[in-house]
């Protein structure tokens, strides 16, 4: 998936870069929306990666038991 193309580290680095630019006050208001959108996307991507959507425990444990 395209989502996986960016690593956590790269995502965090990009978020931090954008944050720094905003904090420096150097960001054009025109770019602000785009950048906030991008940060939000990256955050969502990271969170999605972090949280599992399906429970895999049982799968593993069951598979384990079958062996």
């Amino acid at each position, binding site marked *: 998936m395209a989502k996986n193309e960016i690593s956590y580290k790269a995502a965090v680095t990009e978020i931090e870069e954008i944050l720094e630019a905003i904090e420096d006050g150097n960001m054009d208001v025109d770019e*602000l929306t785009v950048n906030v959108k991008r940060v939000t996307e990256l955050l969502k991507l990271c969170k999605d990666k972090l949280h599992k959507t399906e*429970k*895999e425990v049982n799968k*593993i444990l069951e598979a384990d038991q079958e062996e």
Partner: protein
Amino acid sequence: MASDTLTLYDLNKKIQSVTTKAFPDPLWVMAEILEIQVNRSGHCYMELIEKSGTDEKIIARSRATIWSYKYRILRPYFETTTRSQLHAGIKVLVKAEVSFHELYGLSLNITDIDPSFTLGDLEMKKREVIKKLTADGVMEMNKELILPEVPQNIAVISAKTAAGYGDFIDSLLNNSYNFRFNITLYPAIMQGDAAERSIISALESIFKKEEMYDAVIVIRGGGSQADLECFNSYNLALNIAQFPVPVITGIGHERDETIADLVAHTSLKTPTAVAEFLVDLMVRFADLLNHLREAINKSATWILQRQELLIAQKASDLSHLIKSSLTQEEHALETLYGRLKSGAGTGNMKVSNHLKSYSQRIKYAWNSFSKQQEFELAALNKRKTRSTREMIMQQKRHLGSIEKNIELTDPAKVLERGYSISYIDGEAIKSAKNVKNGDKLLTKLSKGEIHSIITKNGK
């Protein structure tokens, strides 16, 4: 048949009696365990050896037995002290009765064991391994790897059925934060002589898919506390240290760390601790994300507020600037008007002063001119008087000097001084040459004349 011929039984009996005589009391013996075996009735049978210090060649060998009633006491004593089982390869100091049985031969009956000897030996071995690993330069190699902030893809080396493994999986996958982990088990024997080879082979399997994993977890749960010797092995430590993925250990010890723990990237006490550690990393990362989100929110709000203030400021600046600029311009025009008024005034003043100065200049010029002219006329007048008088004086002097000259020359004046003039026939005589006797001579004097006749001529 010779008289000294004995039956084997007799001989063994004889050896037995000699041996018993020779070793009446138990002896403390140092040896290495070559093999060890506990039978069903709980007796422990060992094969003890001694190796030469130089070439590791076996130079002595003996059987030894710990009877079950003793073994039940000695084994826990040994294991709790050394945290190691009695197993092949370790050195022991045992108290042994030397016994010779006619049927079973020589055997050492172990009645006591000194665990501190083995402990020292194990410690020394451990130190040697560390020294070797340090010399190899691998001690810190795995620690130097960077553990990803979010180690989600995990290879686990564990015994499949171990309780520790179950606990580990459970606490990892049922974490209350719903974090997701991808776990792959690489089963291995985690204790005993086979453990070292089994774990290394599991590592080798993982190595083939190295890029799929963020971390390798080595856990051993539930087994005996005295079962950790395999984790002090040089080979296993070398494999862990050089492994290209961070290795996290949770071997389940309570006191000393094994060498595997020392060379691993991170070492934790129990499998559950490892699971908590991993979940904790995730929590920290999730916190970081929340923090970043808040920071973005704050910064964006801040930037917008700041810009809003800036724009409001500019708007108010504009109004102020315009007002002050117009006022300034008005003042400038008033100043110009003032300059015009005073300028036109002073312009006229200047010009009229100039004209006044002309009147004065005429007066001065006239005064100096007329003075000059008067002075010149006076000088001419003086010259007139002086030169006229001088001319008259000069003429007087001239006439006076002529008069003097004439007086000196006048014959009448000469005669007055006693001179006289003589005439003959009206002619004044200047020489006696032409004078003849008898000539009538008239002599004129200053006063009167004398008439005389020449009688003698003295020429």
